[in-house]
């Protein structure tokens, strides 16, 4: 069992606060800052509470941390951040970033992100991550000094480029396929869930209209009055109950969203493999063509058509000295190329090995988390049904007294 950071340190994102400040263009802006609290976990025998350290971070700093991790650990499925903007909203839910409910759910999401990184066997050992949690000032400079930005730009370009790999590792191709499917199906599910939530909200809230009309009607009835009035009260309770129910469901939706974003991280690892493989294939191709050139020059035969060859035929051959010089250059390049190819091959194999290890770890985590999420969804439904039974039992009693 690796001793990851999460076991040694308690990490929470305990508060969110609205701030105003000046941005890069010296314009006033409002943003939310999140309080990260950390505390060393003491052994239970001591019974003493260690002090809590805390610092404030904003969302953009979390993004910076994640981008750093993405670039520095391309073979790791890096945990995702909660969404930047509210997506999959249904009508009652606000799409506003400053909405307190959105901020609250984001706070939970950010805490979850930190815990995921802290319990990852590789990522938790990263110094930049540790400083993110413990060092308020100068952290941004420290990250930039690693120079990861340069790597980030080329990586981003590569991730978006299209190219054809001749011999990818089949497992990665299948995995990429899977991550696409996962992304597609979870998006679809979240969209429909939002619509279902909207409709369910409507059903419950419309029952609230009973309350007022029952009350007004009961005023003209002698025997029916009490039954009507009290039934109306229960209908109000029923209508109000949906707010809590749907709020709980949002947390379930957030759990699914995490894996929606995880799918992207998964695809990034697959793409990295493709990149490396493509690089390898290009290098091998290049080496082969150089070897061929060399052979041609040495033997004087021309197996492949080349413009140079044609021009030299038309305008006369090179001198033996020139040819010798060329061959020498090529031989040097070939040697370099073979070394590079060897190291690229090694790199590729290492990458596949370590990436696949993390992917296995990720798969287990995913299966466990999603199963738990589905169970929690069932628990929520059960609770909703029980509340419904209670309210309608009460209402039925009132109706029967009418």
């Amino acid at each position, binding site marked *: 069992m690796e001793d990851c950071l999460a076991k040694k340190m308690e990490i929470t994102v305990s508060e969110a606060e609205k701030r105003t400040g000046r941005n890069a263009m010296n314009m006033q802006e409002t943003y939310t800052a999140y309080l990260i609290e950390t505390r060393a976990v003491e052994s239970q025998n001591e019974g003493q509470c260690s002090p809590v350290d805390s610092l404030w971070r904003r969302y953009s700093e979390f993004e910076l941390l994640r981008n750093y991790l993405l670039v520095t650990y391309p073979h790791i499925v890096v945990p995702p951040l909660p969404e930047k903007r509210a997506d999959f909203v249904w009508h009652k839910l606000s799409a506003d970033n400053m909405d307190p409910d959105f901020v609250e759910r984001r706070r939970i999401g950010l805490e979850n992100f930190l815990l995921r990184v802290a319990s990852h066997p590789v990522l938790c050992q990263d110094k930049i991550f540790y400083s993110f949690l413990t060092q308020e000032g100068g952290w941004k400079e420290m990250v930039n000094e690693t120079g990861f930005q340069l790597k980030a730009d080329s990586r981003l370009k590569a991730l978006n480029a299209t190219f054809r790999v001749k011999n990818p590792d089949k497992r990665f191709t299948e995995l990429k396929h899977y991550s696409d499917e996962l992304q597609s199906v979870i998006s679809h599910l979240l969209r429909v869930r939002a619509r279902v939530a909207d409709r369910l909200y409507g059903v419950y809230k419309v029952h609230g209209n009973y309350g007022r009309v029952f009350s007004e009607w009961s005023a*003209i009835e002698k025997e029916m009055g009490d039954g009507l009035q009290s039934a109306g009260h229960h209908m109000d309770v029923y209508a109000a109950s949906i707010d809590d129910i749907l709020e709980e469901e949002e947390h379930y939706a957030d759990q699914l969203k995490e894996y929606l974003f995880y799918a992207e991280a998964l695809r990034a690892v697959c793409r990295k493999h493709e990149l490396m493989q493509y690089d390898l294939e290009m290098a091998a191709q290049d080496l082969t063509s150089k070897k061929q050139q060399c052979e041609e020059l040495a033997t004087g035969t021309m197996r492949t058509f080349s413009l140079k060859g044609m021009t030299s035929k038309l305008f006369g051959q090179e001198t033996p000295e020139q040819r010798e010089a060329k061959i020498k250059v090529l031989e040097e390049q070939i040697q370099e190329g073979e070394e590079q190819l060897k190291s690229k091959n090694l790199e590729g194999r290492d990458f596949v090995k370590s990436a696949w290890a993390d992917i296995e770890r990720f798969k287990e985590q995913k299966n466990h988390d999603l199963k738990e999420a589905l169970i929690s969804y069932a628990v929520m439904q059960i609770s909703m049904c029980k509340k419904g039974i209670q309210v309608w039992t009460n209402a039925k009693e009132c109706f029967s007294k009418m």
Partner: protein
Amino acid sequence: YLQDTSLADANSFSPSMPISPSSMINQYKFEDEPELRDLFITVDDPESHITAIETFITYRVITKTSRGEFDSCEYEVRRRYQDFLWLKSKLEEAHPTLIIPPLPEKFIMKGMVERFSDEFIETRRKALHKFLNRIADHPTLTFNEDFKIFLTAQAWELSSHKKQGPGLLSRMGQTVRAVASSVRGGVKNRPEMFTEMNDYMETFSQKINVLDKIAHRIYKEEREYFNEMKEYGPIHTLWSASEEDIADSLKGVASCIDKCCKATEKRMAGLSENLLPIIHEYVLYSEILMGVLKRRDQIQSELDSKVDALANKKADKDLFSEEIGKLEDKVECANNALKADWDRWKQNMQCDMRSAFTNVADNNLHYYEECLATWESFLASQTVDRHREEDFEDRP
């Protein structure tokens, strides 16, 4: 006048829909004195008739009875909507201050229900069935002669009978006069009781119309919810196709959602079969009752105007006295009839509302209980798996 306004059988009603005449006996509620119903009516089997001039629907009306005044104990006739309209107007004519049950409307304006759609015909059939049964349960109306003819006469007999009696225009005139007299600022000698009834009906009418809208709105929301739910379950099944370990859990959730979806469809159906028709019936009833109160006022104003005329003309005192005497009797009978029928109506209304809303509560309870059972059994299956997994991991 031989109007029986006794309240001995004030509780004779049938809130539920009997399926066949023979099952009707079971539907009847026995009060302190077990009273045997002796008239059983069903309306069913709508049939389309196409002639050169028009297309119309007839309904089969089956009557089973043990009453002496009926020649036979079973009758089967075909009636169209027009015939029901005729019956209603005859009853109103004969008993202007009795509460004649409502007929379904001629056309449904709201919604996209077409004139001859299956849904429309079925809704109408149920309402017509209720109409006849309410009349059968009414202590006075049940013995009405036109009612008997409606139930028993063959088509040609009915049309020849219809041609007798005051025409449509005179009936219209009666109602117009009734409305006009009430527009003229009410009746000055209206007994307190009827003013109270009027006030009650005004509020009741408002509230029942609001309830009608709410009930329809609820139905609409439930249907929209059902439509979305239909799509929700299958996504989980789709997802399970790309998974291995969690495929069973996903399929389990899909199955639960599908079952809940079916349960919600049942709940919707319950609403449309019970609450919506009852509330609609009472919307119509509120109009009927306002009309009855107006007619009573009109009968009273006939008397009042004669009394005024007498006060001004000393001559023909005897003649007037006789007329006034008759009118006084008329007013007294009308008032008594209405009072009794009003009490009966109120009791029925209370009962109908109680049973309709209790039925709504029951539907919702069944819905939630079904959903609860589904999710609990899913949860149990997952926990069993979890324990099995844990046991597996613990093994060396």
